[in-house]
């Protein structure tokens, strides 16, 4: 990195007042928008590294307990509606596509297209969370919410009931944490819809939308793993 900085330093030395008319969104501590873009993207990936380890802890504990109670895990996953889960997976991947298209729109300075794609991302995310809420309401009605409200009995094999409760702890914990990330994403989307509509982004400056995209795609990746692990465990395995 240091040689890059030196290179730009030399370039600007011949032009001491270059910063006087810089891009309105160029922070004063960066040489230029390219350096700012690289720094902010790298920073976002550093944050995502902590997120990978955070969700990794969930997947780790999930695997340890699944190994202890494989039959209960299979019964718990079998109880999920895999068709609803499939539809939601398609909806969420669709929202990732619209998010990627929004970044493309920002890069090519298509103001209306970018705004439209961000709104579409928000709508698809909303559908996903609506479906999730519908699933939660069914689980709660069936007495599958862990703790003192857990009244579910697995009639086929009552000995699995407590293991299923443990599975539901992971189900609600992991999907709940995933849903919380989506709610935070909604806040970010609303903010960026306003900025995109205002025309803040273009060929030179689109880093915030790019980073918003990184966040949204990360949340999508978490779901890509949650879906098979919570809905599609085969009873034979």
């Amino acid at each position, binding site marked *: *990195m240091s040689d*890059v900085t030196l*290179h*730009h330093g030399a370039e600007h030395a011949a032009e001491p007042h*270059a910063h006087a*008319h*810089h*891009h309105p969104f*160029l922070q004063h501590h960066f*040489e230029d*928008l*390219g*350096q700012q*873009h*690289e720094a902010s*993207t*790298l920073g976002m*990936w*550093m944050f*995502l*590294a902590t997120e*990978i*380890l955070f969700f*990794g*802890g969930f997947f*780790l504990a999930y695997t*340890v307990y699944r*190994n*202890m109670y494989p039959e209960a895990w299979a019964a718990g996953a079998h109880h999920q509606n895999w068709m609803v889960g*499939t539809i939601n*997976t*398609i909806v969420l*991947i669709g929202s*990732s*596509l619209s998010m*990627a298209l929004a*970044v*493309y729109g920002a*890069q*090519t300075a298509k103001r209306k297209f970018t705004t439209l794609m961000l709104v579409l991302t928000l709508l698809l995310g909303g559908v996903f969370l609506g479906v999730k809420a519908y699933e939660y309401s069914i689980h709660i009605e069936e007495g599958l919410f862990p703790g003192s409200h857990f009244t579910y009995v697995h009639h086929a094999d009552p000995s699995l009931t407590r293991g299923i409760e443990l599975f539901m702890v992971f189900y609600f914990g992991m999907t709940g944490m995933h849903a919380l990330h989506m709610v935070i994403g909604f806040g970010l989307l609303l903010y960026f819809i306003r900025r995109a509509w205002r025309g803040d982004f273009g*060929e*030179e*400056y*689109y880093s915030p939308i*790019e980073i918003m*995209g990184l966040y949204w*795609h990360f949340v*999508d*990746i978490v779901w*890509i*793993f949650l*879906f*098979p*692990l919570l809905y*599609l*465990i*085969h*009873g*034979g*395995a």
Partner: protein
Amino acid sequence: MAQSHHTTDHSDHVGHAPAHHEASLTAYFVVFFALMVFTVLTVAASRVNLGVWNTPLALAIAVTKAVMVILWFMHVIHSPRMTWIVIISSFLWLGVMFVLIFSDYLTRAFNIF
């Protein structure tokens, strides 16, 4: 690094714009289509009893999907090497956490209830 991709500066061009490769729309739609195919595939595979291979297959499909999202939707394929280092090391740490914990828990019998 990314700066090296730059073309010549225009006279009214202040500083450098971020290096971006014209992300091709075709790539996005191809990746989306592939993700849909893999989603159907993972659901279909879960309806068949493959014994112990159901979970490894589901995870292999999930990893493939995740890599596609990371490389193309998250533009890592065009990202500087520094970004690759951060991403690869974060998965490396995840691997360390998994391997060490599993070497303990998955090799002995625990039972809570």
